[in-house]
């Protein structure tokens, strides 16, 4: 498998520890060579763009500059980080804006390509490898994408924001059935979690209700903020997984330490997935 550049982002060593560890474990098992971007900084999250547009481009642009020293394309596990890095990339593709960025950060030798981590698993060779590890389970999951991997569509040019399919496909590769449901890209309330938790509670509970009523036993996501919001703000005990954790189970490399990090105990569902 190929060599990739990796931008973990801040949450993967704190609130989303289990995402970071499961992602690296699965990538290593599949034979990827993963190079972390040297001395990366925070992407600016939702805060730079809320208070200072200039910083919201410069802060993530520094990461692209550091990534340009590596040879691989940049893969990003976190939705918010992916979104911010893409906005910086699009700014660097514009001659005028690039001049402004380079005036502050110095010249860029190249601007690397940036992809969501999911896209790596859609590759034909990876798909064939994953298909050799099909789980035999009746468990159904609802693939939940949130916003930041999908919108703004004209900047990200990733998958269809109305009907995304990447996480569904990846789950299907390893034999896990996904349900049809209408809230795949409905917002969970994002960073309002800290400022106004009742908004996030309402949105998160709506998402979980729809997933459960569609026949899902759990939600599978790729966004650390969505995962945290759905776990923290729900009023039931509905498990929320990262897609890499399910892949870890399929590849036989899952760790007890991941399940211990969850605020909603996922072990009953894990047991059923393992059959």
């Amino acid at each position, binding site marked *: 498998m190929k060599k990739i550049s990796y931008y973990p982002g*801040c949450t993967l*060593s*704190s*609130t989303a*520890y289990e995402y970071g560890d499961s992602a690296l474990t699965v990538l290593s098992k599949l034979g990827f060579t993963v190079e972390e971007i040297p*001395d*990366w*900084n*925070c992407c*600016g*999250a*939702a*805060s*730079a*763009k*809320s*208070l*200072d*547009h*200039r*910083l919201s481009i*410069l*802060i993530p642009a*520094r990461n692209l500059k550091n990534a340009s020293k590596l040879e691989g394309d940049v893969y990003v596990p976190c939705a918010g980080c992916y979104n911010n890095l893409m906005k910086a990339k699009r700014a660097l593709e514009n001659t005028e804006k690039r001049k402004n960025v380079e005036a*502050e*950060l110095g010249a860029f030798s190249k601007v690397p390509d940036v992809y969501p981590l999911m896209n790596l698993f859609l590759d034909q060779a990876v798909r064939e490898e994953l298909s050799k590890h099909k789980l035999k389970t009746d468990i159904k999951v609802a693939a939940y994408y949130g*916003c930041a991997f*999908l*919108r*703004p*569509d*004209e900047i990200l040019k990733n998958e269809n*924001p*109305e009907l995304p399919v990447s996480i569904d496909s990846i789950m299907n590769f390893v034999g896990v059935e996904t349900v049809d449901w209408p809230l795949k*890209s*409905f*917002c969970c*309330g*994002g*960073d*309002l979690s*800290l*400022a*106004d*938790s009742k*908004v996030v509670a309402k*949105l998160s509970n709506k998402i979980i209700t729809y997933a459960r009523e569609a026949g899902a036993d759990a939600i599978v996501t790729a966004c650390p903020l969505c995962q945290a919001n759905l776990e*923290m703000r729900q009023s039931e005990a509905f498990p929320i997984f990262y897609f890499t954790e399910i892949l870890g189970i399929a590849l036989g490399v899952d760790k007890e330490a991941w399940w*211990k*990090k969850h*605020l909603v105990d996922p072990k009953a569902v894990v047991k059923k997935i393992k059959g």
Partner: protein
Amino acid sequence: MQSKLLVEVNDVTEQQLNLCYQCQKCTATCPVSEFMDIKPDVVVRQVILGQEEPLLKSKTIWLCTGCDTCGSRCPNLISVGKVNEFLRERAVKKGIKAAVPAAYAVHAAFLNSIERFGIVHEASMLAEMKLKSKDFFSDLALGIKMFLKGKIPLLPHKIKGLDEIKRMFKAK
């Protein structure tokens, strides 16, 4: 004759708000519009009319999550989320107190964390946010649970190129 505000917003957000024909799809599709004091379609209308002050004092600009559902569904490719970002920055620059103080406190504490460490250190960021918003008790039990799960590391880590970050902040 276009209002000064409309010209500025169109220029910075790179879209044409004047194309809006008030179909109100943005408001219908917005996941948080029910909590907003000025609905997304009215935000667009008020920008067109140059009515800046009520917008800068609104809860709306601080409640918008930037999910961009409005932008992806607008028949005229207008993202109200981008407009709200512009208005938030404008409100802060004009020293107008945020109508949702906790939202401003979160963003300010977050940016301070980036300036100090280069990455976000959740423990000190959360403490600063609590001090700024003077709300010490909401989510305390949840915070303790997260800490006990090892999800909020105590010790901050600094990036090596921190002076490059500090330079970005200083130049503003």
